[in-house]
Every structure is written in structure tokens, then in C-alpha cells.
């Protein structure tokens, strides 16, 4: 089998080749290099933002209580200033990834630190953190430091023969496909999550979000038009479900990318609290373009000489490839793929109503798909004296935690345990903790979400909703 790489895609002559061979076909590494730079910049930017906003203290070290993920209760913040040090190290590792210095090791350091920060408190969960985590994991596994990196320059200097000192400029095409697939998963499941009656039939939660934004400059009046929420809901669902196809098809790719930029710009403008998610998606999506697009762009704008490997503007030299991706790599990627395809829809199997009880909403790419707002109070009863004390989450938790906890049964259970533990430590007696919590989903009428007659201070943890979680209205 003879496989020839061009700037755009592998050209395969002869009989059809297997997946492992096609995945090993070399393609221009330029787009993966730009992807790596964008990823590193996003990581570093996110960490700088964390530091500048004072979130290391406010979100990680100051709270005495953290909402934990099932199985990860052992992940705790470091005391004192050490958590700041972790964030700084992750920021530096992000920069190292961006410039391609010891790329895999830098990505590994950033991955561990970022995951740590992310797992400390479920109340700080954001989908873009999950995306960045997964991309960092791929940066450890995939050869993203092949081109336009300090690694490549160092490898060139160390080459024993002058003809080998030109840095390698290709990566297996599978590298590009894995990155595209990872982004595709985000769009696909964000779209599937929108196939929901509230979203498609009632235009909610966009309806009341738009109603609150009719005064914003430029697009405000558009949001106030009758039918705008429903139209936007359908457009959003169709966008998420189809954009990957349009990005993969060469003829529609430029328009699709323009749509991606417009979509995320509007989303970021209307909903600034979703953080750097829109920016991350816009910066990472160009990986859908031809692997040689950065080289072509550099040439088009006349700065081609800026690239240390760009003397050959035709792209990548033809290569004869007979290598195949190792079977173990394929198996690993297949396992990751199965997990990633199963995790977002686990609520179909495990039960519960994800929009109501929220048990399986994390790691599911349910981006802005519904709004849940709750208010709660905890009635603490001394079993011996029958003395009652009422505690409000907002009185004992930072605002972001109170907001998160008040509408989620599992978080309420964890808070009830935390309160009961505190009282037991002080008095030697474990109190009953009864929780009254009202929740409104997508602006709907409020309903009680947990049974206020059940002592949540002794309720065991569970992966799925238990009887004390009230059924959806």
C-alpha cells in the first residue's frame, strides 16, 4: 500500500487500507500545533483569571464545606498558599504547552493540576473545564509538540546528521481525527440534550433569559420579538447537531466556522457567566480545517517566514507510509470513545429525571440547556431536647455554593451531613437535619425537591435518586 501525504489529506493509492493504516498516514502538523498553542493559552488564561479574580481563595481554600463528586471526596484543597502555587504551576504548564516545551510532560502537569482544581468542589463545575481536561489528556497522549514547538527545535539541534535537523512536520492523521472527534462529542451531546420538550416546544429557558435581555444593545430588540426564543431554541439545537458535519465537509467548512464564531460570540455576549467556554470553542474549532491551514494562512498574509519549518510552502513532502497505529492505541482510543459516548446519556439507563434531580447532569455536555434555581432551609433538631434551629445555606456558605446546593438533592444531602457533623463535634450528639427546598426549573412553578420529613443528615450517598428525592412535577 502506498500512501502519500499532501497538505490537505492523505492520498491512498492501491487497495483500500485499514483504519489503523489510514490513521497512521502522515499529515501536516501545523493545525495540531496551532491547536496546542490555543489549548495552552486557554489553560494559562483560565488560571490567570482564577488568580486575578481571587477565586483560589473564594472558591477553593476559604469554604469550610465543598460539594464533592461521587468517589472523589478525598480530593481536598491544599492549605495556606499552596493552592495558589498549584494554580500558578498549571498556568506555567499551560504556557509550556503553548510554546511546546516538553509538551507531554507539561500537559501532564497541567492535567493533574487542572483536574485537582476542578474536583475540589462540584459547585464550581463548568463544561469547559471538562473540555479542557480532556484536551490536556489528549495532549499527553498525542504528538502535539511535533511542529512549531521548542521540542521540535531541540530535537533538530540534537540530530546527529545535518539532513535530520529539519524538525518533523507531520503527525499521524489519527491525531487530527481524535481532536476533531473530541470537539464533535461536545457539539453532539449538547445538541442531544436540547431534544427536550421544554427546549423545543416551549422555547425555555431561552424564553425568560431573552425577556431579561431585551435592553442589551444591538440584539436586544431581536430577543424581544415574538417567537424569538422558540426560533433560537430550534436554531441552537440544529446548530449543535449538524455543525460537525458542516465543519467536516470542505465546501461548507468556511461558512460553518463563521457560524461557530457567530454562535459563540452571541452566546458569550448574552451569557457572560459561562466564562471562557465560547472563546475555547472558537480557538479549538479550526482543527476541522485542512491540517495545513496555518501554513497556508501564513503564506497568504505574507508572514510565512515566521515559521521555522515553513521554507517548503507546498506543505509536507510525500512520504511512503507502511506503519500502522499500534493495536493497543486503537483499543485505548476505543475505550475512551465508548466511555465518552455513554457518560452523557447515562441517565437513560440509570434512571431519574436529569433536568429535575440533576444526578447525572455533570460530564454530560448539558451546556445552558436548563436553568435551575432553588431556595432551601435546614431544620436542625436536637434528638434529646427537641430544640430546633433553622439554618439557611446562604448564611453558612459562600454565595456560589449556596446557589448550587439549594437546588440539588445530592448537594443538599452533603450539606446536611456537614451541618450534622459540625453539631455532633460540638455537642457529642448527632442532630436530625430536615431540609425544605423549593426548586424552579426553567422558570416553572416552584416545587419541593426533597422530602422534608427525611433526616438527610444520615442519608447515605447514592449514585442515583433515592426515595427522599421527590419526583418531578
Amino acid at each position, binding site marked *: 500500500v502506498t500512501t502519500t501525504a499532501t497538505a490537505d489529506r492523505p492520498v491512498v493509492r492501491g487497495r483500500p487500507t485499514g483504519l489503523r493504516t489510514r490513521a497512521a498516514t502522515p499529515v501536516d502538523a501545523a493545525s495540531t500545533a496551532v491547536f496546542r498553542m490555543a489549548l495552552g493559552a486557554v489553560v494559562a488564561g483560565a488560571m490567570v483569571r482564577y488568580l486575578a479574580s481571587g477565586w483560589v481563595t473564594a472558591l477553593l481554600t476559604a469554604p469550610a464545606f465543598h460539594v464533592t463528586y461521587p468517589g472523589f471526596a478525598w480530593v481536598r484543597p491544599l492549605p495556606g498558599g499552596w493552592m495558589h502555587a498549584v494554580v500558578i504551576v498549571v498556568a506555567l504548564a499551560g504556557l509550556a504547552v503553548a510554546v511546546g516545551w516538553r509538551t507531554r510532560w507539561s500537559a501532564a502537569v497541567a492535567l493533574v493540576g487542572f483536574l485537582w482544581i476542578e474536583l475540589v468542589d462540584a459547585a464550581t463545575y*463548568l463544561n469547559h473545564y471538562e473540555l479542557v481536561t480532556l484536551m490536556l489528556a489528549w495532549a499527553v497522549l498525542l504528538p502535539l509538540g511535533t511542529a512549531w514547538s521548542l521540542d521540535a527545535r531541540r530535537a533538530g539541534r540534537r540530530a546527529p546528521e545535518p539532513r535530520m535537523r529539519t524538525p518533523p512536520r507531520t503527525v499521524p492523521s489519527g491525531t487530527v481525527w481524535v481532536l476533531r472527534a473530541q470537539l464533535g462529542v461536545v457539539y453532539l451531546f449538547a445538541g442531544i440534550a436540547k431534544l427536550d420538550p421544554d427546549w423545543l416546544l416551549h422555547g425555555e429557558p431561552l424564553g425568560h433569559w431573552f*425577556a431579561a435581555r*431585551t*435592553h442589551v444593545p444591538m440584539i436586544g430588540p431581536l430577543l424581544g420579538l415574538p417567537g424569538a426564543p422558540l426560533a433560537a431554541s430550534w436554531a441552537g439545537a440544529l446548530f449543535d447537531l449538524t455543525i460537525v458535519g458542516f465543519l467536516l465537509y470542505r465546501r461548507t467548512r468556511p461558512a460553518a466556522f463563521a457560524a461557530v464564531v457567530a454562535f459563540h460570540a452571541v452566546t458569550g455576549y448574552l451569557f457572560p457567566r459561562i466564562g471562557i467556554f465560547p472563546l475555547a470553542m472558537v480557538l479549538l474549532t479550526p482543527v476541522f480545517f485542512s491540517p495545513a491551514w496555518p501554513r497556508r494562512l501564513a503564506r497568504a498574509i505574507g508572514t510565512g517566514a515566521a515559521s521555522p519549518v515553513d521554507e517548503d510552502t507546498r506543505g509536507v513532502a510525500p512520504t511512503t507510509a507502511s506503519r500502522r497505529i499500534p493495536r493497543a492505541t486503537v483499543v485505548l482510543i476505543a475505550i475512551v470513545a465508548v466511555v465518552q459516548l455513554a457518560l452523557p446519556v447515562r441517565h437513560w439507563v440509570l434512571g431519574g429525571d436529569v433536568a429535575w434531580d440533576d444526578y447525572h447532569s455533570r460530564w454530560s455536555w448539558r451546556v445552558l440547556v436548563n436553568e435551575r434555581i432553588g431556595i432551601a432551609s435546614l431544620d436542625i433538631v436536637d434528638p434529646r431536647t427537641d430544640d430546633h434551629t*433553622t439554618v439557611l445555606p446562604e448564611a453558612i456558605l459562600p454565595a456560589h455554593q449556596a*446557589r448550587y446546593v439549594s437546588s440539588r438533592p445530592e448537594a443538599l444531602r452533603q450539606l446536611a451531613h456537614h451541618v450534622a457533623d459540625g453539631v455532633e463535634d460540638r455537642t457529642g450528639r448527632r442532630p436530625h437535619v430536615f431540609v425544605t427546598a*423549593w426548586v424552579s426549573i426553567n422558570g416553572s412553578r416552584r416545587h419541593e425537591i426533597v422530602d422534608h420529613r427525611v433526616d438527610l443528615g444520615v442519608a447515605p450517598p447514592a449514585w442515583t435518586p433515592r426515595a427522599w428525592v421527590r419526583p418531578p412535577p
Partner: protein
Amino acid sequence: VRRHRSFIAAACVLTAMLAVTACGSDAEATSRPDAVRDAVDRVVAPAYRRAVATTRRAAAAGAAACTGDAPLTDAAAAIADGYRAWLALDPIDFGPATTERAKSQLVYPPDPERVGKLLAAGGPEDAHAVNTRTASDARGFGAATALLADGTDRPARCRYLTAVLQNNRDVSDAIGDAWFRAEPPYVDRAAGRGPKQLSTQAALDMLINMSLNALGADATQLVAARLNEEDASGTVLATRAHLDTIAALWGTSPDTGLRRLTNDDLGRRFAAELRAAQRAGDDPKELGQAINAVRATLGTEVVSALDIVVGFSDNDGDS
């Protein structure tokens, strides 16, 4: 053209969107700032004017009672008016009131025992001493009320009372100046007029969050009073004042107050819950249940409808 038709299509869609935007009615676009401006001008500003005026009257009545020019009952009535007026500001306690620490200076729940001890020791000599060296629970309208109920030595009591009422007036005047006479007056900033104006969202966030804070405190104190069989009169007084302010903010008809920013069903239900709470008896259990209903709807459906950031936290949201 054929080569760039996807770009052209995207450009056409964008142009159409901008055209629709330009042609769209702006009636909806102004309703939210209008509602906030209306709430500030119709409810918030008059409430602050009333509080400043009643505080001045209380100071004058206290001084007149101490010099024997007027009966103590007049002073008691004036102080009660001032107390109620400031309690009513809890759900709209933002801006200059926060800067001047109005809560701790004027309406902190009193500790009659501490007031009695301070009085026995001669009391603070002047308003400055009250402002800077007296505990929050031994000053403000609560302490003034406790002093009037105390039947001890008249000169010392009058000195303490006069100092407290003078401090009330100084703090209140400073807040009134900032609201209405500063450049720019805070009332204009809050209403979204002129320079340094608050955003509509910031003003709404403050109104709803402060209302939730006030109701949360009421709910917990009513439960404590009920279960511990404590005197709930102070909490009931505060709760009623809070309810009146929140009801005024909400509006009385679908086209008034913040109610105009929500759908008819929510507007009607929340107004009914507010009315029920206003009509509830003084029994802490009955009033507490009514308050919990108001708080639950305000903290969920109203927060959702008005897109409020509960707790003012500015970290990235839930996405």
C-alpha cells in the same frame, strides 16, 4: 460568486438579522429599565425620604421630651415611626445606607440589658461616642425605645437618649444627602439616569437580593422565637415592615412595579402570597409559614423571571 457562496449566504443571514433588529419594536427593550426606574422613584426614594424625615422628627421629639417641652409619649411615637421607617428599608438597603452602616447604627436589634448597664454607668456623652464607641445593640432606634421604657434617673437617661437620637439623625442625614443632594445624587444613579448610573441588572440584583436577605432573617428569627418561646414582637414588627416594602416594589397591578417584568400568573400568585403574609396574625408560626411561602417564590420563580444573580457572586456560572 460560486466559490464564495457559503460566505455570501452567511453574510445574507447576518444582514437579515441586523435588519430585523433595526426594525424591531423597542417597546419591550425599555420595559426593564423603566420598571427599575419606576421602583426607585415610586418606592425606594420616597422610603428613604420618609426615613430621613422621621429620624429628624424623632430627634426633635426626644429633645423636646427631655427639656420638658413635650410629653414622653410624643417622643415614643416619633421614635417608633423612625424605627419602622428604617426597618422598611432593609429590603432596599443598598448604596449610601451600606456605606454609612445604617443597619448597625440605626436598627440593630437592641439588648436592653446592655443598654441598662451603659445607662447605669452614665451612658455615652455625645453622638460621636455613640457612633464610634457604643455597641450596635446599645444604640439606634432599638436602644432609644429601651431607654424610653426605662424608668431610671431622668438626666442620665435624657443625655443617653439625646446622644442616640442625635447620632441617628447624623447618620440618617448623611444617607439622605448622598441619596438626594450629592453630585450625582444616588437616586439618579440607582434609577439609571445621568453619570455613574447603575446598570439595570445591578439595581435589580440589589433589590431582590436584599429582599431575600431580609425575608431569610425574618424566617429564621420567627422560627427561633416560636420554638424558644421568646418575645417575637421586634421580629414581627420588622417582618411587617419588610413585607410592606416588598409588596410596594412588586406593584399592585400587572402593569406596575417589578410585577410587569413577569408573566401574569407569577405576578398574581406572588401578589396573593404577599397579601396573605401581610394579613397573617402576629403568631410566629402563622407569620413564619406565610413568610416562607413568599421567600420560596421570590427565591425561585421571581429570581428566575428577573434573571437575578443570587448572592451577587461574580464567579463563572453554571454551564
